[in-house]
């Protein structure tokens, strides 16, 4: 750690933002700071992402990657038609992804709507991580997901409900309308308030993932600014998308967010997680993300506390690939669950 990193590490989130912004987190200060960040070379970024996506990962490396991917998945169901039964079967799958192979690792978390958190917690039982390092976390989307169009009071109540019900992680959405119209201060304050609402009675905090919904931010520069803003305000994770609109996660967008995380580590010594979500359906795609993480921020990021895949159908494809590697013949959808 350099001396400047050491100085930064001793500050709390608010003080750190104050020191970096050179003043209060007002619209004007944030605008000056965020617009001062160098712009992104879009062609270069896409080229770099395409290049990272062309690596050949085979045999034992592929087997390692597949197991790693499973252990990084936030197994998700976010449908209006979700029922307690659906969540229970999701939890069953999270605990035993491949019933034919007990050596198959478990996923990192299950991600559900706030009202279904108690069902997930109960279904997990003793397998629920609940703050420990082993077990499966319960993540809840909150703050009027996916649009984020509700008053702050409603959003905070939404978060508080989920945390009290036992959610270990909260996936919040930022107010894209406010961000795009330049009201950075409002977005910042909201994240800070939500972070505070993640506080449990014992004083610990649920992990906060900030969804940028990059598909609505239009430019890579905006993605980079939103990433900085979310990290400055105290997000533990930055997440690409809700999965409710296209385009969701893309490799270039995730790469640019990983670069921000890398720069933040250089600046402050602190580690922030990244979660691409939506649109990652095949093992092949997921392996590209694993390569990108390892090459951008380093392999130490390939751990559930720093990198996640938000996905539902990805798991089945990974399991089929895994079965192919174990049995030596191609598997089919008849050999994995119907979600």
């Amino acid at each position: 750690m350099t001396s400047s990193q050491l100085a930064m590490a001793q500050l709390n989130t608010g003080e750190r933002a104050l020191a970096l912004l050179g003043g209060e987190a007002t619209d004007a200060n944030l605008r000056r700071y965020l617009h001062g960040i160098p712009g992104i070379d879009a062609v270069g970024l896409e080229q770099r992402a395409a290049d990272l996506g062309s690596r050949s990962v085979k045999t034992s490396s592929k087997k390692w990657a597949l197991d790693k991917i499973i252990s990084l998945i936030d197994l998700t169901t976010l449908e209006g038609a979700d029922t307690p039964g659906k969540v229970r079967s999701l939890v069953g799958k999270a605990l035993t992804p491949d019933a034919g192979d007990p050596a198959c690792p478990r996923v990192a978390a299950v991600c559900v709507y706030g009202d279904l958190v108690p069902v997930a917690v109960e279904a997990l039982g003793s397998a629920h991580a609940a703050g420990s390092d082993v077990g499966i976390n319960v993540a809840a989307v909150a703050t009027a997901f996916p649009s984020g169009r509700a008053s702050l009071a409603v959003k905070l109540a939404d978060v508080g409900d989920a945390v009290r019900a036992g959610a270990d992680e909260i996936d919040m959405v930022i107010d894209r309308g406010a961000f795009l119209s330049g009201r950075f201060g409002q977005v910042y304050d909201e994240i800070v308030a939500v972070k505070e609402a993640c506080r449990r009675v014992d004083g610990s905090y649920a992990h906060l993932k900030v969804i940028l919904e990059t598909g609505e931010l239009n430019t890579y520069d905006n993605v980079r600014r939103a990433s900085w803003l979310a990290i400055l305000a105290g997000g533990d994770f930055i997440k690409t998308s809700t999965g409710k609109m296209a385009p969701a996660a893309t490799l270039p967008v995730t790469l640019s967010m990983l670069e921000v995380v890398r720069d933040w580590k250089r600046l402050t010594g602190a580690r922030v997680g990244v979660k691409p979500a939506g649109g990652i359906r095949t093992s092949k795609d997921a392996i590209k993300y694993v390569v990108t993480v390892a090459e951008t921020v380093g392999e130490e990021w390939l751990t559930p506390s720093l990198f996640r895949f938000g996905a539902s159908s990805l798991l089945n494809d990974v399991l089929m690939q895994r079965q192919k590697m174990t049995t030596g013949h191609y598997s089919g959808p008849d050999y994995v669950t119907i979600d």
Partner: protein
Amino acid sequence: MTRLAVPKTYKLYIGGKFPRSESGRVYEIRSHGGDFLANAAQASRKDARDAVVAARSALGGWAGATAYNRGQVLYRIAELLEGRRVQFIDEIVQTEGVTPAAASAQVDEAIDRWVWYAGWADKYVQVAGNANPVSGPYFNISVPEPTGVVAIIAPQSGGSLLGLVSAVAPALVAGNTVVVIANEKMPLSAVSLGEVLATSDVPGGVVNILTGSPAEMAPWLASHADVNAIDLVGAGELDWVHLQIDAAETLTRVLQPENGPDAASPSLARIVAFTETKTIWHTKGLI
């Protein structure tokens, strides 16, 4: 000034598109006299895998189409084949070294075979299905349904076009989707048939045509858990007993190799071979 001939690139037909082999490999196709004719794509096991994925995703639409509609679509293939008969005759003469008259006769027979099988689409259920007698006031009905994705090793000898059509057409009638490995030495008319299928009303992915070595790809298709049936009609030269054993591991239906000029001759049995019988009961109106 002489004009430089523009040779055609013969590619695979997978999911309604014409990709090159994922492996980047090609192999030389030579005429009966030994002259170079073309480079054909040499498909790998991954192309076979992609073809199965394409066939699986096309299954719902094709199996769900009405029998009458499937018959029309199959008949339309015959119509288009008729319009391109000169091209097919030319390719057959070059690759098989037969007389134009014999090639013409083969194309005629292939077209007639499409028509024959097209006619069965809305009729075979009446013949293969049954209303079973029961001792109660209800119906008990057995109906054949398509089995799913069918992998086919096309005949490797005899007419290159007719052999392929004879193997593919019956599997399509009931609503199955097909992954076929064409005649290895004479695949040109198979790729051209792919072009006919692409411009007819056959939805992409219903027929997928691979060119290359059956010995290389057949084991992967036989052991593939997402293949429901495998027709080994042209696998007589391969280690087909092992292919059967591999197929049995995932309960894949198997048709055994056939040799000689009558291989895959038209029959209702070839249609019914790729079906599963569903038996249901239904209440009778007691008015």
